[in-house]
């Protein structure tokens, strides 16, 4: 969290010696807070004060990075309890758990399917983020082999699940470099796990089933070993405990600046769920309510597509709708006789109509009007998609230069605009399209003479 000038001042020598080039320590502190000079410009700052300052300037929830640079997963570093206060920054990683004692080919198949999965939504490709390999066999060699097998099918970040430091060491030998998350240090094994994390420069998960006191004590211990990137497992599994405990941890970190719990949290929705759908519902709750890494026990497109959509929704900046650039977009290879369609620059709207035109096999000119990222009806209701504005887009984008006809299709939801639009665009014939984009293919087939 950025410190204020006054907070920085407290750590300075307060001698006003001017060696930094500022008249007083306070003046210097103010400049440091504005980031116009670096704290190291003060030659008299003690090493302790500097360390304390850095600690105080750390974000209240530590950023934790898994994986290699090319395929990394960053979680944590959230700054608010509610997305409307600012935004949520680092979407929780969705990782799939696989078991080391699964037959090799089945394990590889599972990994391949999830690793290759991608689904397009509003022009973005949504994907899974990694794999959690579990040492179900309790055997070190089997664990190491499974990690190798997973890595042969995917370069996504890994979580290594074992309580046994020897097995963990064997697996780490296969998984590093690549910064897997070590899961987990508990009250019995923490010292060895912490040593492994230090040696392999990996983030470490800390797990405790008891009260937050126990978790805090454990985090303190592993922190003293010099580990900065920690992930918390408070043991809360089901809907109720997950919501309460994760809320408490987030509040302690953000509101009380409580360091020992200022880390992202890992959850296991499958462990409390009797069905696949319940697992997905609990995971969806955890997307909204404060998980950093979500370990799923099942993967199928129908399960993860809604979940990924939930994550996209919750992690969209509430101040700024996802939008596209206003312009003429060519769908397919349109000709001078191809249809001209009007839409808005809200991504959801644009991709709905663009996608349906493509799916129906129509080449077309799509005029994307600037509605500041609002949907058809919202923009209309807000006065940002009226006849005048549509006419302006049609003229400014010079669509008339591209086509030999003078017909333009407007969305069915704004049929009321037809009359005014005819006045604004006297050369054009205004066709009212269907309300829903799915029906645009059928509509054009009936009404468009190529």
């Amino acid at each position, binding site marked *: 969290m950025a410190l204020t000038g006054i907070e920085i001042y407290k750590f300075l020598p307060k001698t006003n010696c001017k060696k930094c080039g500022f008249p007083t320590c306070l003046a210097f502190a103010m400049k440091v807070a504005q980031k116009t000079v670096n704290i190291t410009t003060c030659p008299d700052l003690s090493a302790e004060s500097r360390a304390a300052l850095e600690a105080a300037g750390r974000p209240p929830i530590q950023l934790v990075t898994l994986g290699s640079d090319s395929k990394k997963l960053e979680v944590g570093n959230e700054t608010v309890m509610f997305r409307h206060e600012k935004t949520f920054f680092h979407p929780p990683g969705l990782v799939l758990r696989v078991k080391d004692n699964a037959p090799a080919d089945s394990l590889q198949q599972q990994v391949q399917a999830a690793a290759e999965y991608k689904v397009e939504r509003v022009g973005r490709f949504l994907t899974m983020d990694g794999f959690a390999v579990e040492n179900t066999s309790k055997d070190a060699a089997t664990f190491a082999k499974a990690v190798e097998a997973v890595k042969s099918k995917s370069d996504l970040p890994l979580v290594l699940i074992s309580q046994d430091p020897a097995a963990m060491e064997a697996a780490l030998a296969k998984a590093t470099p690549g910064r897997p998350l070590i899961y987990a240090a508990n009250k019995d094994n923490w010292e060895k796990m912490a040593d492994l994390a230090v040696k392999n420069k990996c983030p470490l998960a800390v797990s405790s089933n008891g009260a937050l006191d126990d978790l805090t004590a454990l985090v303190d211990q592993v922190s003293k070993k010099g580990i900065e990137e920690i992930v918390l497992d408070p043991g809360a599994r089901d809907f109720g405990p997950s*919501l309460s405990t994760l809320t408490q941890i987030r509040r302690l970190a953000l509101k009380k600046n409580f360091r020992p719990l200022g880390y992202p949290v890992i959850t296991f929705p499958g462990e409390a769920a009797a069905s696949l759908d319940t697992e997905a*519902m609990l995971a969806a709750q955890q997307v909204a309510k404060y998980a950093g890494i979500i370990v799923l026990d099942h993967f199928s497109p129908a399960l993860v597509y809604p979940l990924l959509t939930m994550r996209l929704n919750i992690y969209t900046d509430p101040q700024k709708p996802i939008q596209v650039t206003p312009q003429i977009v060519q769908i397919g290879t349109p000709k001078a006789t191809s249809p001209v369609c009007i839409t808005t620059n809200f991504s959801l709207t644009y991709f709905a109509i663009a996608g349906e035109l493509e799916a129906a096999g129509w080449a077309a000119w799509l005029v994307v009007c600037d509605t500041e990222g609002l949907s058809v009806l919202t923009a209309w209701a807000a006065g940002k998609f009226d006849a005048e504005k549509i006419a302006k887009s049609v003229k400014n984008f010079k669509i008339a230069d591209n086509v030999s006809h003078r017909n333009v299709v407007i969305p069915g939801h704004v049929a009321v605009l037809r009359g005014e639009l005819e006045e604004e665009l006297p050369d054009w014939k205004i066709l009212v399209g269907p309300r829903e984009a799915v029906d645009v293919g059928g509509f054009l087939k009936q009404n468009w003479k190529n």
Partner: protein
Amino acid sequence: MPVEIPVEKWNGQVHQVKLGGAGGRKELVVGGENTLPFLKFEGNIPHRPAVAIEVVDQPPQGWAEPLVKAWGNVLQDPAAWAKKAAEYGADLISLRLRSAHPEEGNTGADHARKVVAAVLAAVDLPVIVLGPEVAQKDNEVLVAASEVGRGQRLGLGDCLDKNYRTIGATCLADGHVAIAKTPIDMNLAKQLNILLSDLGLPLDAILMDPTTGALGYGLEYTYSVMERLRITALMGDKMTSPPMICTAGEESWRQKESKATAGVPQSWGEQEQRAILWEKITAIGLLNAGANVIVLRHPRTVEDVKAAINKLSA
């Protein structure tokens, strides 16, 4: 080192609203909490959120295959449908008088009276009656419904800024609860509550419908407007304190993800599971944002959402 659990001190609380509880109808109370959704370590949550099942007064047009399959024959008969809904565990029924829509039958007050009477006779659960979403017809059929259910504390909606006088007055006269709907905006929601209060309708006779955006189709907006409304209420603003109702089923089953049987990317997965999960996840998101009544369509969603509510409330 004992960790002190941070607890917010809220000054306000959500109004408690009673549906039914008279004229032979079961009583259902929602609201009353003085903390954020399900945070029992912090405050008092006297009533868990309720699950309503949507029933339509004529066989619905264009409903997705999984819904048609799940309900089967009862889609032809609103009373039988409501009964079935009760068997599936509904806490209340949300009856949509769709046939009154000018383009979908244009039935009038007489028909509304018959359908509402039949549904009221078929179940002893509390009932919400919704119009066809055309202001003038809404007034006609809702006033009729209001008379039929006089004294049974129904919910009546949608009560909009356009027709709040008529609906508000009817609720006041016949002892019903207004479903006050505004388009995803905190100030508009508050404003409508103020207008209804000025009419004399008490705040414990209002449920706010903040307008649901389905998963992938505006959920992020509804979610945050609800969180803001709830926080404002807990901070002591009475005019944002009525409980909230969300039409999760209606919105999520309208979307392509729920309807499309073919011609969609493989990455969307199998339709039935995807469609039902779309509704379930929309619902779980809105419950976490503060929904007190969640209106659903698919029986399997009802089952899982009720189980989740129970776990969150345990």
